[in-house]
């Protein structure tokens, strides 16, 4: 941001970097608070309920009250847990989720790190979270926690493969892993949702599985595993795991906006509306999509889940990569871009 990363180190620059990070943190927290609120509202409306409406006007402070309750709870560390791992697991899970937000460009000028391998960075860091989840499950010394952790690892490792491969089509078309260049390629041509429709569908499914959300919420299947890997967690450590999930939702929806919906690019030549508004609208649409499928689909079975990833999504993703490469070599896609 503002070329600070290219300059020599100085304490002022460090201060600016930290304050920018805190500001982004504030924005992300605001998003998380109201994502949870609107998730409960929308799921409520679909189930013909009203959703939270008691705390504050229209229940707007419901999540604030919930988080406050979590923060003032006693920090319980059960006796027989592996203490060190139990304590650092939420931190390991959370840190990468916040770190990947740095590479996402919001508008032409509003971005934090212009990384040449932005997509690689995103994929690599987001898989570190699995370690935190696994550690949390294992350190809890609880059968539900370890089962939830194992399921989570199996699921996230499996679905990461088609997820990353669905990026590849986009990368092949732009010839860049830099997210800003990907958006610029879409500004010149068409949004990648059209030439990369198959990749987009794969991304939608695998991304949802990566987020551990319904219909892929087996790691925390309430009716089988109580709460999965965070059974033994309470108070602010539990809040950290929840925060991780919703920050990933932010990151995943932003990434999808950038890769397939042209980021800040205005459709139909509606350039007078600023790019940040367009980015935000597309982003909200994708977040709504996540709520919508949560309210619609039941959870998939474990055996179907793994079979679907390895037998359907990965071959499809490979096919998509090959097809894109072929069409690109034949010069059909280079006309698009």
């Amino acid at each position, binding site marked *: 941001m503002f070329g600070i990363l290219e300059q020599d180190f100085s304490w002022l620059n460090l201060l600016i970097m930290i304050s920018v990070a805190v500001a982004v943190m504030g924005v992300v927290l605001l998003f998380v608070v109201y994502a949870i609120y609107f998730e409960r509202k*929308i799921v409520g*409306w679909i189930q*013909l309920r*009203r959703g939270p409406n008691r705390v504050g006007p229209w229940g707007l402070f419901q999540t604030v009250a919930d988080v406050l309750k979590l923060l003032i709870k006693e920090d319980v560390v059960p006796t027989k847990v592996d203490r060190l791992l139990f304590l650092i697991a939420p931190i390991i899970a959370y840190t990468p989720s916040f770190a990947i937000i740095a590479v996402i460009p919001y508008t032409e000028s509003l971005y934090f790190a212009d990384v040449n391998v932005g997509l690689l960075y995103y994929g690599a860091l987001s898989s570190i979270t699995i370690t935190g989840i696994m550690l949390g499950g294992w350190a809890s010394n609880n059968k539900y926690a370890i089962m939830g952790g194992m399921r989570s690892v199996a699921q996230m490792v499996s679905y990461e493969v088609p997820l990353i491969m669905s990026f590849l089509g986009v990368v092949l078309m732009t010839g860049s892993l830099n997210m800003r260049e990907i958006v610029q390629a879409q500004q010149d041509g068409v949004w990648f949702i059209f030439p990369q429709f198959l990749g987009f569908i794969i991304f939608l499914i695998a991304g949802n599985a990566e987020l551990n959300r319904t219909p892929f919420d087996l790691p925390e299947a309430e009716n089988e595993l109580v709460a999965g890997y965070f059974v033994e967690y309470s108070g602010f450590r539990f809040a950290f795991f929840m925060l991780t999930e919703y920050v990933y939702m932010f990151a995943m929806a932003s990434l999808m906006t950038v890769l397939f919906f042209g980021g800040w690019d205005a459709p139909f030549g509606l350039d007078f509306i600023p790019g940040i508004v367009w980015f935000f609208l597309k982003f909200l649409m994708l977040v709504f999509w996540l709520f919508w499928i949560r309210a*619609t689909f039941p959870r998939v079975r474990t055996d179907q889940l793994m079979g679907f990833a390895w037998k359907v999504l990965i071959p499809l993703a490979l096919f998509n990569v090959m097809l894109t490469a072929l069409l690109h070599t034949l010069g059909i896609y280079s006309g698009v871009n």
Partner: protein
Amino acid sequence: MWGIGLLKGLGFTFKMLFQPKVTTKYPDEPIEMPNRFRGIQHFEPEKCIVCNQCARICPTGCITLVGKPNPDPEKKGKVIDTYDINFELCILCDLCTEVCPTEAVVMSNNWELATYSRDNLLKDLKWLDENNTNIREENV
């Protein structure tokens, strides 16, 4: 096949988003109970002839009443002195109002008995007399 069912499901839930809600706004807006609802009894001491039938029929024995001789020496019979219903016990079964020959005790549509102390659940003659809203239509 080909995910048609998934799209149908999504379409259905999207339609549901705009349907009227089935929940009530209960604590904000009172709930209208249907006629013949068995709510808290209303008691009219003037009508009572102290026949003791309500106390005898009560399956939980929650009604206690005491009569006294009619203060008017010209008239025979008794008038009611105390009349208590213990709502810790009362199951609102309607038998006391069914059996009452003079309709001195009747059902109302009021039903909110929640309180912070069990002591408040012993309702006396005065309270039951003042509980004179939403009385069952056939007894008005």
